[in-house]
């Protein structure tokens, strides 16, 4: 079957004819298009414009670091609360011990206060550390179970900063006596 040959003088498409007939509309559209494109270009330029960095003095840095230490200690105490609440399921801890843990981690933060670090990442890291460190503070050893009964411990800090227990009193939790 012979191939259909292309015409040397192709007829203009309907859209082209209509464009010629309605030239005014085309100009109107083009003017509004130019205005819109310019607006978009300006917006893009504005987005690409670098934001000026604020000068931070040494005093500001020191204050910032102090705030980090305080906020770090707060975050750590929160993390501890979670950990403690887990431990609570077996044995409640007294307020003194909580404070002791808090102080320990505050010291930990102060050690790193000289560095500018990304707070959130550090918080997460330290929270993880807390999860690892706290179970190793002989708490588990203190939480002894005996014949379905749990210990109610009188924790005390010894000279090495470790926790020791004195005179464990065995109580039956089922009785609701938690003193």
């Amino acid at each position: 079957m012979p191939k259909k040959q292309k015409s040397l003088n192709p007829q203009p498409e309907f859209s082209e004819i209509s464009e010629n007939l309605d030239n005014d509309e085309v100009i109107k559209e083009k003017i509004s298009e130019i205005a819109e494109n310019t607006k978009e270009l300006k917006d893009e330029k504005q987005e690409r414009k670098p934001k000026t960095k604020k000068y931070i003095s040494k005093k500001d840095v020191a204050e910032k670091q102090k705030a980090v230490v305080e906020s770090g200690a707060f975050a750590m105490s929160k993390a501890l609360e979670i950990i403690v609440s887990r431990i609570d399921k077996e044995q409640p801890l007294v307020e003194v011990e909580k404070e002791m843990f808090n102080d320990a981690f505050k010291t930990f933060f102060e050690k790193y206060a000289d560095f500018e670090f990304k707070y959130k990442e550090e918080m997460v890291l330290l929270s993880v550390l807390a999860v690892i460190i706290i179970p190793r503070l002989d708490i588990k050893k203190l939480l002894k179970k005996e014949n379905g009964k749990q210990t109610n411990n009188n924790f005390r800090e010894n000279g090495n900063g470790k926790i020791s227990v004195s005179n464990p009193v065995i109580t039956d939790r089922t009785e609701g006596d938690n003193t």
Partner: protein
Amino acid sequence: MIILDPLDEHQGILFFTLDDFAFYMSEHFKDDEFRLVCRFQDMADYEAVFEIAETIKNVCLVVEEAQIYISARSRESKFLRLCHFGRHWDVKVIGIARRTPELSSDFRALSQHIISFCQTHPPDVKTMADMGVYDVDKLEGHDYKEVIY
């Protein structure tokens, strides 16, 4: 006539935003006469005016402080495009500038009608002489020299 007037020197229908100007132009581009004054804040808006002039055709563009819109070595500009090809669209460009060396070399080369008032700075005088307007430093008061190519 469309006048780009950043320094508040001309009278006419005044536009402060491109949107207003574009809206007016889309309604009145077929008018026999208009005298529009553009006083925009953003340079990009002026570029759009050059583009619109190319679209509507048959318009006279008065560009005050012409060195603002096209630097001496710039090769990419809607204004430069109008200088090069404006005659195809019947767009006349009148450029007004204080110092000719600051103007684009293309703009200077493509000018057909040059009018100069007194110039005293040697580089300015030399540039005018290169363009065929001699002894502009000897002009006094509001005297001017005119060269038509």
